[in-house]
């Protein structure tokens, strides 16, 4: 082959304004994460942002708590149909996991401590998800909905309460996972500063 083989990792298009950021020194953020918008993006200590995750602060401030994991292709602060600008677009509590391709829309949306937002799930604008909830893959939470603590949403909107009482264990597991991810994902917070 005469043509030079180009990098298999295409560059991430940095479109739009570069948002102001406030990072803790202990976070891990991949080089190819996408941070756009005009409002402040705050990421608290030991959180991990995977490659190609998208944080969009165009509609308000994005806050990511301690020891959160935002997986690839997840979107925080997606501008939904409403498109209004609020003070705090998306707030994640501590120990929140946002899995692959999940989308959390902007507009005072709150995700409580220890909640797992499953693969491809969608949380509407202004929804308040309680602590230690599990949203299984492809779950949709409507805009403005309030989900109580320890709720499991599964199978197209069925709900039950998680009575296992494993929240502490889950948080410990998350800390272990972050220890490993920190070694695997090359972090480059300087790029976004």
């Amino acid at each position: 082959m005469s043509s030079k083989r180009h990098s298999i990792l295409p560059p991430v298009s940095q479109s739009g304004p570069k948002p102001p950021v406030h990072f803790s020194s202990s976070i891990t953020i991949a080089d190819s994460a996408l941070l756009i918008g005009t409002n402040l993006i705050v990421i608290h200590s030991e959180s991990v942002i995977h490659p190609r995750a998208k944080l969009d602060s165009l509609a308000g401030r994005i806050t990511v708590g301690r020891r959160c994991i935002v997986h690839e292709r997840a979107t925080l602060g997606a501008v939904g149909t409403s498109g209004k600008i609020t003070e705090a677009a998306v707030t994640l509590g501590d120990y929140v996991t946002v899995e692959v391709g999940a989308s959390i829309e902007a507009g005072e949306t709150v995700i409580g401590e220890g909640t797992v937002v499953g693969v491809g799930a969608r949380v509407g604008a202004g929804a308040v998800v309680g602590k230690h909830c599990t949203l299984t893959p492809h779950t949709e939470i409507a805009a403005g909905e309030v989900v109580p603590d320890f709720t499991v949403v599964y199978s197209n909107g069925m709900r039950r309460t998680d009575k296992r009482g494993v929240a502490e264990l889950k948080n410990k597991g998350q800390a272990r996972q972050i220890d490993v991810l920190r070694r695997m994902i090359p972090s480059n917070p300087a790029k976004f500063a």
Partner: protein
Amino acid sequence: MSRRPPRGEYIETDTGNKVARKATLVGTQNIMLGGKTVIQPEVMIRGDLIRTIQASSQSASGAPPNNTAVSIGRYCFLSRGCCLRPPGRLYKGTFTYMPLRMGDHVFVGPGSVIQAASVGSHVHIGTNVVVGEFAIIKDYVRILDGTVVPPNMVIPSLSIVAGQPARLIGEVPEGGHEAFELRDLYKTVGNNPQPAPS
């Protein structure tokens, strides 16, 4: 006139793999492709999530650590926007990722996310399917569109599954094996694609 051929949409390797230039492969050194595999644009493979704990038999023999994170067999077809990532869990008190193994003639539909421990041969995975962590999919399995396979599920050979969460809804009929063959599909993509035989 330049003799250099125009740069195609795909990179075609010596072993016949067709990898789209717009695919996102992270940690390429840990991704094994068996050959004749098609990777369409916007596919993401997380090869950087390697296992951190080696099997005890390996560490004892002093063999070099096997860092393969994702291994894919021959004639696999990864459609646009799908994502393969190795599953991870706590093992002996520490967190580790485990390799994702995929057999031959596996079709992965657009937008699907695969975190299985192993996928057999001749498996058809539909559109927007989620395969949970450490699921084991055996040979000749058909997973219909929009299915959510829960973590740790084992899907036996020749079954058809669908639903959220996935349930067994049927079996592959007698003589239905040929439909899993992906050789013809392989020829229809690439830099000089051929029309599908009618």
